């Protein structure tokens, strides 16, 4: 079960992730800075709260690279209306990364997920999510990938 933290109340809210199959759904999204229609060639998933299924909390764009047995996270963005300062909802990006890890296990890639974030943020992605650096890229796999799934998606709640 995906759990998003409401930082104001300390309450965990149940969320779900759905694949967006129609590019039209990415048109004119409110609360997002990036042009998500440019991600149409890739796999795009949205995360939303079970109690508010029509409000997109965040989006992830993944590129499947089967010849290298990896899922590449191209872009993640959390809806700006849910990330005020102080932020209202926490763990959204973490849940999306953990979801990419689960895709990478299901596809027999050993949970291998790569990113090529802005260079100046590389250290922070390593600290926050346990990625390791390989040249300009970051990657997570095996135990570290399973740990992200455990931390953000959980084990027992099914």
């Amino acid at each position: 079960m995906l759990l998003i933290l409401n930082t104001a109340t300390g309450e965990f809210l149940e969320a779900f992730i759905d694949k967006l199959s129609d590019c039209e759904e990415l048109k004119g999204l409110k609360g997002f800075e990036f042009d998500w229609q440019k991600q149409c060639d890739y796999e795009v998933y949205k995360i939303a709260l079970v109690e508010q299924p029509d409000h997109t909390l965040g989006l992830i764009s993944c590129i499947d690279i089967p010849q290298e047995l990896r899922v590449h996270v191209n872009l993640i963005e959390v809806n700006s209306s849910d990330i005020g300062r102080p932020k209202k909802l926490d763990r959204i990006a973490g849940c999306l990364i953990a979801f990419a890890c689960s895709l990478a296990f299901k596809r027999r890639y050993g949970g291998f997920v790569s990113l090529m974030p802005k260079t100046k943020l590389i250290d922070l992605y390593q600290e926050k999510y346990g990625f390791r650096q390989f040249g300009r890229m970051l990657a997570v796999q095996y135990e570290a990938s399973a740990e992200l799934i455990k931390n953000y998606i959980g084990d027992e709640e099914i």
Partner: protein
Amino acid sequence: MKKSEEIYQKLKEKLTDEEIVERYVIPEEISEAERQVVEEEFRAIRMNMLKERSEQQRLLSELMRMKLLIRDYLKNSQYDEAFSFANQLQAYIKIIDRPKKDFAEEIDIHPTRLSRILSGKESPNIELVYRLEKHGGQLIPAIYWWKLHAKQLEYLIQKDEQKRLEESHKVKNHLKFRA
């Protein structure tokens, strides 16, 4: 200025880098030529990793896959024979690559009982699912194993008309109500 850099600079006016990392993965924008070099280098590293994959890593990968597929199945309302307790236990034994006799010994059950469970002639009990959880290094929780069995039972209770009829013949002096 490139698009993602523009957005990053705009975000920097409101958020620290730590906060950006908690909300975004912003791709580094590089030229196509640079990208090809980065991708090529990374491909070589990745291929090397795959060549050096250990047995422990193979096991972890396969068991995590099994666990996530079971989780998806349990969320789905439809019963699927491929996910019967017996078939998943069979799949587990194949992943860990043990002779059935050795596996039976490792989880402290008689080989005949294991065979009966694998053929669906005998049901698992709570003790067994705890043992399976422990045997698999806690990767697949006992509750997953139990729910595979429970989902199968629910399906059978709803669909097994022959058994329902057989059992109804064994009941005497049953209560009667007008519907």
